């Protein structure tokens, strides 16, 4: 009965993200915000970075952030000192790190057991050819909005980016964070020497955080490009409006 079918709405709801993916996504998003704010507060107490085991205002820095500091002992060139916020920032940073790490572990176990990683994140072999990759890259660089199929599954660049964030950047930011702990350094010296020292670990921690912020900006940009309402709805309610004729 073609007439009846045409009378039905063209779009309908379909499941997209599982409850666990949605909950861990938003918990991680909140943690990211808290870690970023407290991390910036901690950095401004000494906005100088070094390489190796040690570094202080008497040793040459690798680079210096051109910002004022919250400590009068740090020469910044600014004529003022910001208020010290390290106490609550450190408490908040470490408490949030616990929540983020436990959430990440839950997500990782779920991702392995449910097939989420295999199904949704590992790219198909055919998508990894240079041709396919450069086509995807060209689409992204032209800000081409994703097609209908990409509302249902991630494209190859998305898959590779998420894999990089989940399995490289997150573990690295946790590891370098732990390597700055004097007690962890005493129990697991390799965690520090692997990076060449505690100041190197601090510097890498900073750079990985910068990469994660860049990822966040691109991530939000892509959500807007793909259709903010529908993508947010998918990540909040788990369902996505889709055009029946395309499936």
């Amino acid at each position, binding site marked *: 009965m073609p007439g009846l079918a045409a009378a039905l709405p063209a779009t309908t709801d379909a499941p997209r993200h599982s409850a666990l993916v949605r909950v861990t996504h938003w918990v991680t998003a909140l943690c990211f915000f808290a870690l970023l704010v407290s991390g910036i507060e901690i950095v401004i*107490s*000494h906005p100088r970075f070094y390489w190796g085991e*040690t570094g202080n205002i008497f040793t040459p820095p690798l680079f210096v952030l051109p910002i004022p500091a919250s400590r009068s002992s740090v020469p910044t060139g600014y004529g003022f000192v910001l208020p010290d916020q390290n106490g609550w920032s*450190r408490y908040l940073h*470490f408490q949030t790190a616990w929540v983020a790490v436990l959430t990440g572990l839950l997500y990782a176990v779920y991702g392995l057991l449910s097939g989420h990683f295999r199904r949704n994140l590992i790219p198909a072999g055919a998508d990894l050819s240079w041709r396919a990759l450069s086509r995807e890259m060209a689409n992204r660089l032209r800000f081409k909005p994703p097609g209908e199929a990409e509302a249902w599954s991630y494209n190859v660049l998305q898959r590779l980016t998420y894999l990089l964030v989940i399995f490289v950047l997150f573990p690295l930011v946790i590891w370098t964070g732990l390597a700055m702990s004097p007690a*962890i*350094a005493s129990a697991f010296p390799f965690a520090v020497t692997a990076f060449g020292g505690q100041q190197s670990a*601090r510097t890498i921690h900073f750079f990985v955080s910068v990469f994660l912020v860049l990822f966040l900006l691109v991530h939000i940009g892509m959500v807007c490009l793909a259709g903010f309402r529908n993508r947010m709805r998918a990540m909040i309610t788990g369902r996505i409006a889709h055009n029946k004729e395309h499936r």
Partner: protein
Amino acid sequence: MSNLSRRKLISTGLWATAGASGVAVAAGLAERYGLLAPDHGGIYGPGAALTYAAQRLLTRHSLAREFPRSQISKVPFANPTDPQGPAYERLKAGGFVDWRLAVDGMVARPVSLSLAELRSYPSRSQITHLACEEGWSFIAEWIGVPLSHVLNVVGILPQARYVVYFSLQKGWWDSIDMADALHPQTLLTYGMNGGELPVGHGGPLRLRVPRQLGYKNVKYITRLTVTDNLKGFGKGLGSASPEVGYSWYAGI
């Protein structure tokens, strides 16, 4: 209400109950095995409690890294401290011969020790890293008597759980648990890089706790009190640091 959502509601309730009782059991166990930091109350309490408990389980006996002489920092930095009160100036003028370290509390034989007496005890020299919570660090050789030796001399009572230490500087005091107090690298430090401990680094006497950050390494130590409970000291948070917003445990 459909069957499905009722089942969901019941299972959510069960999970929440299991979670809450799990937390309560964990808190009880942590208290029993001395894994609960004195500043575990408040909104940041859960994080501080988890960090302290996890690090105590993982690092109770671990040794801070020691470095070769070649890695000693050429110019060690110290945050400016200002002990110059009349009392400190008088002691300094006298070459610190009148400096006393009182050891009291839950000990069999309370004493008051001079620096000469501390120097007569077996000494230990170690080249370790000192990192400040701000982010800077340096490596130096620290020379002193292990705190555990002094605690053996005075004879700590079996119920002892913390050692509280006080600076000549007003308002500076802190405490460590017995894992750190009896740790072989925890030093009552009187020497640095082959010489006397400079005033800027806490001379004549500083407690070095190399597995914790700089602010636990209180300068100008004049008194140690052994106790089983930190409630009676200051605001009961274990040290002056939580009173100004910094965590009691600084192993991270």
